[in-house]
């Protein structure tokens, strides 16, 4: 059925607005991170971000060290933890990179994946801080 349009007004495609998050390059999933921000008191949400930031520093360090030492178990364990931490706060792109790092079916060399992980970590943190109003 043709949509009736009031002359002189711009038509806004609501469907596009709703779908937009799927097409953006946002580092975090608002349905998870946004929900956390809505559900929890601000100080608790900020504490979670601080914990995530500490996890990122520790786990990317462990990944780098394990890669340097050829410690595959340590490398996979750190990648698994990083994927879990990222998923918990809705850092989807970081989670995907971490799962790639731990997926034996798609071997990607650490020298290739580690820089991507670092970049995704920075983006995710930046957006989380924005969400927390920091």
């Amino acid at each position, binding site marked *: 059925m043709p949509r009736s349009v009031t002359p002189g007004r711009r038509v806004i495609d609501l469907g596009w607005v709703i779908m937009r998050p799927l097409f953006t390059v946002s580092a975090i999933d608002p349905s*998870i991170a946004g*929900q*956390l921000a809505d*559900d*929890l008191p601000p100080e*608790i*949400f900020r*504490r*979670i971000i601080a*914990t*995530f930031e*500490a*996890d990122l520093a520790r786990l990317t360090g462990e990944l780098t060290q394990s890669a340097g030492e050829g410690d595959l178990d340590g490398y996979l*364990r750190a990648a*698994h*933890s990083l*994927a*879990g*931490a990222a*998923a*918990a*706060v*809705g850092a989807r792109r970081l989670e995907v990179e971490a799962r790639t790092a731990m997926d034996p079916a798609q071997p990607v060399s650490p020298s290739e994946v580690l820089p991507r992980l670092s970049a995704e970590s920075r983006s995710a943190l930046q957006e989380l801080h924005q969400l927390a109003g920091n």
Partner: protein
Amino acid sequence: MSETVTAPTGRVLLVEDTPTQAEVAKAMLAALGHEVRHAATGAQALLLAQEWPADAVLVDLQLPDFSGFELMRRLRAEGSEAAMIVLTANGSVNTAVEAMREGAIDFIVKPYGKARLKVTLDNALENRALRAELTAVKQQLNRGRFFGFVGASPAMQAVYRTIESVAPSRANVFITGESGTGKELAAEAIHKASPRAKGPFVAINCGAIPKDLIESEIFGHVKGAFTGAIDNRAGAARQAEGGTLFLDEVGEMRLDMQVKLLRFLQTGSFQPVGAARPEKADVRIVSATNRDPLAEVEAGRFREDLYYRLYVVPIALPPLRERGEDVLLIARHFLTRFAKEEGRRFRGFARETEAAISAYPWPGNVRQLQNAVRNVVVLHDGDVVTPGMLPPLPAPALPAAAPQPAAAPVPPMVAPPPAVAHVAAPPSPAPVTAFAPAPPPMAPPPQPASIEPLAVVERRCILAALDHTGQDVPKAAALLGVNPSTIYRKLAAWRSEGVHA
């Protein structure tokens, strides 16, 4: 009408090694009102669970020291009854199936929101509460002991429940049951389970007290009230102040005494024999009879108004023959107790002995069984009780409706004599026992076709009285108008003379 539904909250142990995930979960759990403790490893979780029993455990599957499944197994092995919920990034069917097989009540796929966590935890806690309730109910239904009672049969479970229900109230309780079924035990259990437990429990056997003395026994007397009343004496009603007065064989009370008891029940006051003024006493009355109380009312031997006053909560104690496996539980209980008392080695019954005990209908009920086991322990020793050690048991004279004993081997029995014509109630065993042959019953009086020695007549009367009372020596003595010690002396003398069945 609106109804407020409160979600269950509880103690939740979170086992998660990644700090970010743990922080998010803790924040959500706290927001949902739960009390939370966090462990980052399986070992930490085991320690925490020991000192802080949780209602639910949220378990990450990949822990640094061992798997979440292994943790669940160890927690269960240590007796944890918490609801286990698995946290996993892998939402495959295989993981779900394995989680359930390992005892998880549910699983949550990461990442999860507060709403999902709430629904899962609410269900788990409700499930756990229901399981705990079910366990408690099952335990109650399977109680093998209750105050002085031994027995786990459904019939006794119903008795235990009634006693528990009635104990806290002030309602009068009327206990019925054959001789030897434990009417006084039931009365004591009611007293001990009641708020009056710290008060006295005073038992009066109305059938064992001469009818002229019963008023004085219950209400007391003042000095000079009658010949022999050389001092003031408090009766059972005064002695039971703040506690429970148990009137056994209440149907044996004379009608004029029943009027006085009724007044006491109605007003809480009584008048000691010879006293000028009434006195008050705060007592709860529990009464009992081995007769059919309504039949006694219809026969005019028991006042109807008193019947309704006493018969507020009836408790019918089942005869031992209707208590199934209880008979063996009770026999083992007595064997252990008496063997310890008598310094014997007995550890149990031989299988054939148990079969014989189970097959016999025990018309004298628990008291008869108790006497039989005591007899075995006193006269024998060994590791197990063999069938030959059992005393001769009288052949039962059961009413037609009563279950017949099974055809299992039973120790030697005495042939049943004719029923005693004047015995109103419970099915009586034929004359006894381990220590005397079965004589004919006491009544009707023998025709004087031949004159018997007095000792024979005496023995016959005593044995008939014991039979009538289910081997209750004090009651038999009361019926015969002699002191119980007289009967005990006679029994000992017959035994030493070798007068056996």
